[in-house]
Every structure is written in C-alpha cells, then in structure tokens.
C-alpha cells in the first residue's frame, strides 16, 4: 500500500471537512453567567508592562549621561585621561602597600 498517498488522501479529506460554526442557543449567556466579578489582576503582566514603560526613560538617561561624560572629559584640561585615572585607581592598593611595609 502506498502510505504516502494514503496519508495525503486522509489529510485532504480532513482539510475538506471543516468543522461547523454552529453555536448552541444562548451559549454566550451561559458563559457570562459563569464569569467571576472582575477580570483578575495579572501582577506579572503589570510588572512586565511597567518594565517596558521604563525602557525609554532609562535609555534616555544613559544617553544623556554618556554625552555629559564625553563632553566633560573633552573640556577637562588637567591632562589626566580616563586611562591614567583607571591606572591610578588600580595601582592605588599596591602603592599604599609599599608605603606601609
């Protein structure tokens, strides 16, 4: 027996047989009669929505801080660069260690 053809025919039969759209009489009344008083408050969805709303302001703050840092470094004439600052900070414990011993 050609199983691939059998499968194709059966699926075609199922495709041709769309279930009916008929609805029992006053079904919507039955549903409404079973509804609880109010839709439940979905805490997870509310938290999710709040986080999504917070995305745009947070991105704006990050961008503003970035621009401010960039500009303040350009205007800083002390000669100290970010690299030098980082190096001083990293070596600070070792420098103080040498002085102590």
């Amino acid at each position, binding site marked *: *027996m*050609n*199983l*691939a*053809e*059998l*499968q194709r*025919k*059966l*699926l*075609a*039969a*199922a*495709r*041709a*047989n*769309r*279930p*009916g*759209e*008929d*609805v*029992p009489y006053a*079904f*919507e*009344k*039955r*549903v*409404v009669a*079973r*509804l*609880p*008083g*109010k*839709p*439940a*408050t*979905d805490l997870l*969805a*509310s938290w999710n*929505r709040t986080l999504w709303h917070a995305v745009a302001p947070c991105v704006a703050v990050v961008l503003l801080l970035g621009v401010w840092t960039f500009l303040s470094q350009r205007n800083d004439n002390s000669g100290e660069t970010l690299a030098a600052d980082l190096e001083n900070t990293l070596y600070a414990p070792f420098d103080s260690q040498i002085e102590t011993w």
Partner: protein
Amino acid sequence: MPDSAAVERTDAELIAAVLNGETASFEPLVKKYQPRVFVTARRYARRESEVEDIVQEVFLKAFQKLRSFRGDAPFEHWLMRLAVRTCYDFLRAHRRNREVSFADFSDEESDWLERFAANPSDAGDDAAAARQLVERILAQLSPAARLVITLLEIEDRSVKEISALTGWSVPVVKIRAFRARAEMRKCLKKLAREKYL
C-alpha cells in the same frame, strides 16, 4: 436598544468597559467570536459536550486574563492563541492510549481502505469514511503531534503562525512537525501491516 448599541462598539471599547467592571460588555465579545472558537475546538474534541466545555474555558480564561491583553494585535488573534493552547491542554488531559486496530473500523472505513489498496484513485478524498478514518488516526497521535498536524497540514498555517499560536519557537515547531509526520506514517504503517501484509 442595548444590543444594537453593543454591536456598534469596537472590541477596544468593549474590553475597556469590561476592565472598568462592566462585565455585561463581555457578552458581545463572546457572541462575536464564539463561532471561530467552536470551529477550533471541534478540530480536537469529538463529543459536543467536550467542545462546549473547551469553548467555555477559553472565554473564562480570556475574561480572567483580559488585563494582559495589550491591544498591540487584534483581540481575535489573542483569543485564538488562548483557544489553541486550551485545546492543547485538553488533548494532554484526555490523552487516550488505546491502540486502534483494524477490527475497530466500521464497514465503510474498511471498504474505503480496501478500495484505496486496490486502486488509490477509486477512494475519494471527500468520502465520509475517509473523514472518520483520519479522525481515528489523529486520535492516535500524541497531543503535540496532533496539534501540529492539524495546524500545519489541515488548517494550512505557516510555521511562523503556529509558533505564534502555540508559543513554541520556530525550530521547535519544525522538529515537532517532522516527528508528527513520522508518527502518523508509523500509525498508518501499523494499520497497513495488520490488514494487508
């Protein structure tokens, strides 16, 4: 004239009213979308009482989760996702492990299969026996396989649409579709071996 007034209100207005505590505004939404939900439920449940229970559960869930509907997509899409997931839950809860054997088939189903075995073109796609037969075969499949075969092969939906409806990722849908086809072929092979080999 509350009914005609309700008809004129859009889905968004009705949803806003329900969220403001006007529970009666949910009725026009049920009335509008219940035929589509019934069609979906009838694809997975045979008995009408089971179909009604599924549809009722879909609308009760929709009401309870209405606050999570963001309104980015049409309400109908959101509701149909809920309907498909409820049907999947139903299939998992009512999983029947009973193996179908050729002896369980009706005379019409056996005749149709015999006609197909003799000459495949003699067995029509539109025969009632073929429809009963495919219903039996689908009932044999695992819940995931049945869901994927129904959405992909019978409802002719794309993998992306199935992914959106089920919440599975696109690769998962593809893998499950591959396994579902293999599962269906295995089921048909078993039947063919039983009767014709």
